[in-house]
């Protein structure tokens, strides 16, 4: 697991909450910092790809492990 600056546990939350919480958390971070997100919503895999593409924040990692989804987003 790469290093990260902030962690967001969005487990149990459904669309669109993981994205909205991530957006809110990113707003409190500075450019270049990395946000680690944990989610259980399978839809979040595609949604975080789309979020990264549209907002310019880099999705450095996206993986599934034991039914949970983990993402690393680098703030632009």
């Amino acid at each position, binding site marked *: 697991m790469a290093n990260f600056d902030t962690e967001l546990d969005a487990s149990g*939350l459904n669309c*669109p909450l993981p*994205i909205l919480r*991530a*957006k809110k958390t990113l707003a409190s971070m500075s450019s270049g910092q990395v946000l680690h997100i944990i989610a259980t919503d399978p839809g979040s895999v595609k949604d975080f790809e789309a979020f990264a593409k549209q*907002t310019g924040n880099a999705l450095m990692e996206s993986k599934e492990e034991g039914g949970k989804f983990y993402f690393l987003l680098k703030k632009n």
Partner: protein
Amino acid sequence: MSEQKKLAIIATKGTLDWAYPPFILASTAAALGYQVQVFFTFYGLQLLRKNLNLKVSPLGNPGMPMPMGMDKWFPVIGTAIPGMESIMTMMMKKKMKDKGVASVDELRDLCAEAEVKMIACQMTVDLFDMNPAEFIDGIEYGGAATFFEFAGESDITLYI
């Protein structure tokens, strides 16, 4: 980022199920950097009340899944039984909570926080003698021309 994208939505429905699309799309678009306006007209104005009392009805809604296979053996007329609406609303709210779906209040708060502009249709407010004091703070009032001012330069416009 270059020119900010814009999303304009007209929300016309005032039931619990139909409250979701406008608020989900508006809040998500805002998170993606869109500037968003939602114009609430007719029954959509119910979505602006401070005290939301939204219901979902199985009546005339054959696509609605019902618990325990009720939709399979229940006669259509059964959906009109008094109290059915309250029961289905209660069940729907419980299901949403269990599955981690946000409440309408929560999504609406997120929209307000993200500076989604909410506009109440003045004509409908007058038509139904609605009391603006019962609506949430921070909304604006306007008409069709107000909607077009923003919609005319929007990238996406949706009628819900």
